[in-house]
Every structure is written in structure tokens, then in C-alpha cells.
């Protein structure tokens, strides 16, 4: 590690000597100041605090704190991910849970203390970037610093004597360095050159990109909306309004008006499955063909939504998250009036889509005696029924569908105000229809078949089978910015880490004996094998233009015996 920090303190360190100016401003990293405790009232303290906050040391500590702070959230259940787990945890640890609750440990990433740390870090970051940017602009305006007096003190050094005139050598060096895209100029008896400013650009771009990403992420959290909607093939569509959702949650600043106006319908769901072999039943494709329109009166467009392949409308994304079957059921009362005709989505129970659910006839039905009642029909569905396997489907596709129905009558209790699952029936006020043997009436139907309810109570027909698909609709503004920031961060990092910023000086002066002495030296941000290699290349070319002259007879400036051997180009 070369000590080329910008700070004047280190530059003044005795062993650095006159290297200070030459090595200064080789980066824009803030100086490591151990600022004295201020004595100047509020302003002094504020300035001191700001200096501390924007120092590299504090940036490092804050970074460490962010890493440490992120740990508990990965080990303790988080409400944002799994609220039931949090509840379980609270039950299992009655004394610990309230403490955790107070400390925000069930929602670490939105807790006060975690936010405080990363906000401080980002304030520090901004406070760091702004002056660094100005400093860098200043460096671009200025010229590389002049050559230090003793080039021999630099990390890479070479010299030779030549018959060429010093001016000639300097001209050649200037031309060569410029050709190699160094910023070079002549100052006194030496050429100063610098290259690799892109490193600084990359570093600044990276740190700015971090801010862009954070802002985009925060924006996305505050304005995001997410909900689910189940649609049946060919059934009524979905239009993006709050009431149309089956469930919905949103960020703090999200307003209902922010929902993108669009609507879509499910035209057809297609699932294909491996037919044979050991992975029989494995899903091959899931595709939902949809027709969507943007805006209130947009023209309908067709598209296909797949797993991992959402439909994007403005900044809303529509994901296909689940599928299942919805038998079309017709219920007639004792007089033959149709009281129910609809596709009833059933809940899949296993990977072969064995499904269950309930057909609920809420109103319009009158029993044989003409009394108004509600009907509830437990449905159990096997898309592929195989004799011998009565309770589980043997294949996920609709190869041999069988619908098992068990009807009840009475009061479904849906008006009691307690929300009910559509897949379950509250049987407290329901009575089963009985068959001739006084057992629960239960029948297997194939598509098109009808079961008759006892004592003229009506009929239930299984007409056909449709499929349903569940869609998750999310709107997260700012993801484009996050992605842009991320890409900028990677390129910035690469520039910052792979590009070397370095300086080269070439001095040519007449020695005491009238022969020109050429000296070349290089300095980089960190000791690198590339630097001597590059210097060697440059020296090689320059040497051809200013070939060596014989050494003087007397080696008065005798070389130090403790010569450090030149590092070979990194084996």
C-alpha cells in the first residue's frame, strides 16, 4: 500500500518527503482527519459532527452496522413475510415477544433503528459525494502535478543516459504519453502525465447509483400495491379497481387513484403435463391466454401470461400464480326452475389437482313445500378418475373428470356477518339430504350427468368443466430506476476497481559531464505490478528514440548495495 492519501497530514509525514505534492489528489477520498474536539459553540460542533459523519472511518462503521443490523431480520420471523410465524413465535415465547415487539425485531427492515442507520449512511454518502465531485472537477481542470525533486523515491523508477538533447527527449516523451492517452504537459525540466480518471468517474458513479437505488426502492415501497384476482375461463373479467380485487394491500402513500386503468379477461387456461415416464404428471406448461385493454375504452389486445413471465401494463405486472378447475353447475328447484348456473372454482389439494369446494345456492331456491331455503353442496373433484383411486386424482389434466357431490339444505349462515371461505361450508344450520338408506346422499357425476335430490327437492347437473387461474397484480413504481441504478452501480464498480489511476514523470536534464540523463518514474494509487510494467513499456519506446550513452567512468553516485530487485511482471 503506498501512502498516497490526499491528506496533508500524511503527505507531511517525514519519510514521504517531497513526494507529497506529486502524490496528492490521486484520488478524491476524504482526508483521514482526526479532527480535534471543537471549542467553538454550536456551529463548531455541527461542523465537527459533519466532518466525522462524512469521513471514511464513519462510513465504514455505518456500513458494518447495516450488515449487523440486517442479521436479526433473517433469524427472527418477520411480519412482512410470514405473519402466522410471528404469531406462533409470540405464543411460544410469551416473555420475549413483547420485548422483540418493542425493539421492532418483527419488522427489522422498517424499524426505527435500522432506518436510522441506513439513513445516516446515506446522508454520509451524499455528504461524501458532493465535495468529492467538486474536487474531481477541480482535478480535471488542473494539470497533473509537477515532478517531485527526487524521482528515485517513487515506487517505479528507471533511468539511463543518452546522447540526445534534453528538449528532444522531453518532446518525444510528451508525444508518446499523449499518444498513450495520458493527460500530459511539460513543466520545467520534466513531463508530468496522468491517466485513469475513469476510475474516479466510476467510483463516483457507483456511489451515486447507490443513492438512486435506495430512493427507487423506498419509492417503490411507499407507492406499491398488490392484490389477487381469480378468474374463470370465459367468465367475467377484472378491471383494475379496488373493489374488483379478492384481496389487496398497498404502501403507505398509495392512493386508490394511482391504480393503472386497465382490464382483462381470461380466455383460456392451458396446462400440459408429462404423459408418461417417471415424471408423469410434471407440469410442462402453464399458459393463460388473456385479452386486456388499457384505459377505459382501450382496444382489446391478446397476450399469454406464463409463470416467470408476467404481463406488463404500465408499471403494473400481472403474474399467473395458481390454477384449478371450476365445474359448471346448474341447480333446479322442485318445479324445474333454474336457481343456479355458474362455474364454481374449487381449491386444488394436491399436485394432481384433486380439488374440493362448495356450491352455494344463496337465494331463489324453494324446497318441495315451497319454503325458501339455501343449498350447500360439498364438491370433491378428480380431474382424472381411475377406478380404485376414489379419493385422489391420478393425473392433473381433465382426462376422466368425476365430480362427487354431497348436498345439504338449510341456512348457510352467510348473513351472520362472519366472513366465510368460499371453499368451506358452515354446517351448523345445514341438514344433509338422505338417500333411501338414510345415509348421506352422495353421488359421482360425469360431465352432463344430473343427480336428483330426494322427495322432489330438485336436481343438480354437472354440465362441463372450466379452468380458473389466479392472478397477482402488483404495481411497484420505481423498479425501472432501481434497475438503472443497479446497472450503473456494476459498471461504476468495475471502473473503480479495474482501472488504475497513475502518474508518470519523465525528466531529462544535462548531467555534470554534459550527457543527458533521462529519469522516468511512476506512481499509482496502490502498488501494482502493472505500473512498473507500463513504465517499462514507455521507457522501452522512449529509449529507442533516445538511445543509451556509455556510463561515465567514475561511479560517483554509487548505487545502494541494498537494491531491491525489479519485480518481474507478476508471475
Amino acid at each position: 500500500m503506498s501512502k498516497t492519501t490526499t491528506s496533508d497530514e500524511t503527505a507531511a509525514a517525514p519519510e514521504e518527503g517531497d513526494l507529497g505534492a506529486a502524490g496528492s489528489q490521486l484520488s478524491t477520498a476524504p482526508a483521514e482527519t482526526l479532527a480535534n474536539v471543537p471549542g467553538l459553540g454550536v456551529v463548531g460542533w455541527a461542523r465537527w459532527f459533519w466532518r466525522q459523519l462524512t469521513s471514511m472511518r464513519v462510513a465504514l462503521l455505518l456500513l458494518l452496522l447495516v450488515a449487523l443490523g440486517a442479521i436479526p431480520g433473517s433469524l427472527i420471523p418477520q411480519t412482512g413475510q410470514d405473519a402466522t410465524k410471528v404469531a406462533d413465535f409470540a405464543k411460544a415465547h410469551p416473555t420475549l415477544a413483547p420485548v422483540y415487539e418493542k425493539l421492532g425485531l418483527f419488522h427489522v427492515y422498517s424499524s426505527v433503528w435500522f432506518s436510522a442507520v441506513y439513513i445516516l449512511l446515506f446522508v454520509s454518502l451524499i455528504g461524501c459525494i458532493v465535495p468529492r465531485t467538486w474536487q474531481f472537477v477541480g482535478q480535471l481542470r488542473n494539470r497533473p502535478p509537477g515532478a517531485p525533486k527526487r524521482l528515485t523515491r517513487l515506487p517505479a523508477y528507471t533511468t539511463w543516459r543518452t546522447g540526445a538533447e534534453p528538449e528532444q527527449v522531453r518532446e518525444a516523451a510528451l508525444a508518446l504519453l499523449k499518444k498513450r492517452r495520458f493527460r500530459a504537459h511539460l513543466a520545467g525540466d520534466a513531463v508530468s502525465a496522468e491517466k485513469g480518471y475513469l476510475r474516479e468517474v466510476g467510483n463516483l458513479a457507483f456511489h451515486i447509483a447507490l443513492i438512486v437505488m435506495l430512493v427507487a426502492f423506498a419509492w417503490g415501497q411507499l407507492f406499491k400495491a398488490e392484490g389477487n384476482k381469480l378468474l374463470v375461463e370465459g367468465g367475467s373479467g377484472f378491471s383494475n379497481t379496488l373493489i374488483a380485487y379478492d384481496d389487496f394491500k398497498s404502501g403507505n402513500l398509495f392512493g386508490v387513484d394511482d391504480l393503472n386503468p386497465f382490464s382483462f379477461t381470461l380466455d383460456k387456461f392451458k396446462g400440459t403435463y408429462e404423459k408418461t415416464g417417471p415424471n408423469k404428471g410434471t407440469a410442462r406448461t402453464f399458459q393463460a391466454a388473456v385479452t386486456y385493454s388499457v384505459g377505459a375504452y382501450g382496444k382489446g389486445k391478446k397476450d399469454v401470461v406464463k409463470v416467470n413471465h408476467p404481463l406488463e401494463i404500465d408499471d403494473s405486472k400481472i403474474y399467473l400464480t395458481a390454477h384449478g378447475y371450476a365445474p359448471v353447475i346448474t341447480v333446479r328447484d322442485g318445479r324445474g326452475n333454474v336457481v343456479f348456473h355458474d362455474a364454481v372454482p374449487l381449491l386444488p389439494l394436491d399436485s394432481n389437482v384433486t380439488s374440493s369446494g362448495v356450491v352455494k345456492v344463496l337465494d331463489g331456491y324453494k324446497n318441495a313445500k315451497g319454503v325458501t331455503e339455501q343449498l350447500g353442496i360439498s364438491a370433491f373433484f378428480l380431474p382424472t378418475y381411475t377406478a380404485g383411486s376414489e379419493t385422489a386424482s391420478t393425473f392433473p389434466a381433465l382426462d376422466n373428470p368425476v365430480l362427487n357431490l354431497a348436498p345439504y339444505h338449510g341456512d348457510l349462515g352467510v348473513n351472520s356477518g362472519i366472513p366465510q371461505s368460499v371453499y368451506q361450508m358452515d354446517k351448523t344450520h345445514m341438514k344433509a339430504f338422505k338417500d333411501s338408506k338414510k345415509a348421506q346422499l352422495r353421488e359421482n357425476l360425469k360431465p352432463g350427468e344430473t343427480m336428483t335430490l330426494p322427495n322432489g327437492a330438485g336436481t343438480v347437473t354437472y354440465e362441463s368443466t372450466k379452468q380458473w387461474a389466479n392472478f397477482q397484480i402488483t404495481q411497484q413504481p420505481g423498479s425501472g430506476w432501481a434497475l438503472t441504478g443497479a446497472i450503473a452501480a456494476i459498471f461504476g464498480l468495475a471502473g473503480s476497481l479495474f482501472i488504475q489511476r497513475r502518474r508518470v514523470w519523465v525528466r531529462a536534464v544535462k548531467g555534470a559531464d554534459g550527457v543527458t540523463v533521462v529519469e522516468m518514474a511512476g506512481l499509482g494509487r496502490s502498488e501494482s505490478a502493472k505500473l512498473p510494467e507500463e513504465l517499462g513499456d514507455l521507457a522501452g519506446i522512449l529509449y529507442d528514440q533516445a538511445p543509451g550513452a556509455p556510463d561515465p567512468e567514475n561511479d560517483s553516485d554509487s548505487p545502494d548495495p541494498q537494491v531491491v530487485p525489479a519485480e518481474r511482471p507478476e508471475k
Partner: protein
Amino acid sequence: MTLAAVPDLAGATNLAAATNEHLASISNTLIYSAMAVYTLAFFAYIAEWLFGSRSKVGRTAAALTATARAEARGPAVTVKKDGGTAVLERPQVVVRSAAGARDVPDGPGAHGGDEQGDMYGRIAISLTVLAFLVELGGVIARAASVERAPWGNMYEFNITFSTVAVGVYLGLLALKKNVRWLGLFLITTVLLDLGLAVTVLYTASDQLVPALHSYWLYIHVSTAIFCGAVFYVGAVATILYLFKDAYENKLATGGKPGAFANSVLDRLPAAASLDKFAYRVNAAVFPLWTFTIIAGAIWAGDAWGRYWGWDPKETWSFITWVAYACYLHARATAGWKGRKAAYLAMIAFGCWLFNYYGVNIFVTGKHSYAGV
């Protein structure tokens, strides 16, 4: 309407994949064969170290006392003459260490300059190449047997991971980098890794993880494995740096290290070289690690409807990333260079390891792996 109980499509596809039994058993045979060859290589590396110990070089000590002398006379001014001939091709570049740094030459390597040791070292490398090829064959056969990338569970991660780590080592050797000293340490852990894989983590090849049907899988997981392997190489260098640095410190302050330390550590590259190597390796993959996390986020955005959700795996990738960022910052911060930065690098690698083993085994999240 509650749909919470609807199993997602990901789950629906979680069924047995076709297994080509034959290929799977070929894969297993190849992995076991690779282990056998690695074991032979391990013994050859040991032989290299043993023969190397015959030479009592003590270069570090010599250099340190020499520099101490030189420093007493003031900083070394280094002008190298070319013996008066004017016909040199190109002037010789002299490299001067930073002020205050120790001028310690790199050790000669495990063989310690001993010819027989060197021969065993070469044998060890040849065996490593062979084992690498056999293991690579095993990984490919595994992939063919499950008809997908071999990254579905921890067994597959482990075998791929060690293959890549050895590949990185051999790659650096092929690029003529001075990394032969890594051999024994690397192969020892590769054997541990494979041992763990075939005993504890072994999963029959017919399991398939949930809906991983996205090309982001290939991008995200392959770069993750590669980064891990490179971070691992960096971590080995960092540990050796810490030992070597302590050794040099002891010598420089007039201490007398034990015979074992003398024999082993003297043959390693200088602490400064190890430190530089570790830094380069870690810094070089850091952008790729950044990319890996971003690729994961993009994939999560497509698959789960959010690009970042603080899932344990995501969280630990983030922690690992921040820890490496700390390390890079520390290197640029006066007062944190050297040993302190090295400790940070070790912590960062610890985070990576925990993300790999700890999170998979002890923490449940969306990243679940069939049969671990």
C-alpha cells in the same frame, strides 16, 4: 375470498424429474473417482511440503535483518546500472516498496527450492488436473441425468462449487500466476467439501426444485457459485496472510518463531504479496457478486412479484455484499489497512459461508432446496 391456501404453480411443478439412472450412477462413480485422485494429489502436495522442509532457507529473516540495516542508513535509493553496456533492450525498472513496508521477498513455494519436492509438486498439480477433469465429468453426467443444470440441491452445489474452485486455481496457474502455494490448502478443503457432499448432503438425482424455469436461474446461480469459489480462494490467501504477517512481525521485532512456523511460513509468498493477492481476487469478483445479487432480484421480480423481499437468502447475500464493501473501504481507510482489513475479509467470507450452509440448513425461506 381467501386464496391464501391455493398452492402456487411453483409447488405444482415440484415433481420428480426424469432420472436417467444409468447416467446418475456414472456421475456418482466419477465423483468418487475424483475424490480418490484428489486424495493422491493431496499426498503428493504433502510430499512436496515434506521435501521442501529439507532446505533451511530463512530468507524472510535474512531479508528482514537486511532491511533493518538498510533502513538504519536511510531509505534505499535504488538505481540499477547495467554494467556499462549501452546495448540493453530497455532500461530496467526498479521497484521500490512503499515507505515503511517490509521488503520481504516471496518464499520459494512449498518445495522450498528442493528439486525432489518440486517434482512432487508437479505431480500433485498433474493429479489435480486429472481429478478436476474427472470431477467435471461427474458434474456434467449429473446434469445430463437430471436434464437440467446441476444446481438443484446442496449436493449438486457442493460438487459444482469444488469443481469451480479447483478450476479457478488451475486457471490462475495456467495464467502463470504465482499461486502454487495454494495447492495443499485448496485440495484439503475440496476433499472436505466432497466428503460432506457424498455423505451428509447426498440427494438421489430424481429431485427437482420448484419452478426454476427461467434463464435467470442459469445466470444467477452460475455466477453465485463462481463468486463463491473465487471468494474462497481469496479467503485462503487471507488466512495465510494473517499467519505470514504475524511471522514477519515476530522476526522483525527480534522474536524467534517455532521451527514449524519457520519451515512452513518461510516458503509462502511475503505477507504483502499474499495481502495483495487476496485483495485482487476479492476486488475482482466483487462486481460480479453485485451482478449476481441483481440478477437474483430481477429473477425474483419475475417469479415472485417483487424484486426484493428480505427473504433470508436475499438478506444474507446483502450482508455478504456489505461485508465485502466494508473490506474494500477498509483498504482505502488509513488505520484499517493490513490485518484489520484482513479480519473484515474473513468476516465477509464467513457471511458467504453462512449464506450457503447456514441459511439452507437452519433457516426457512422462499429459497428452499429439495432434500436440502
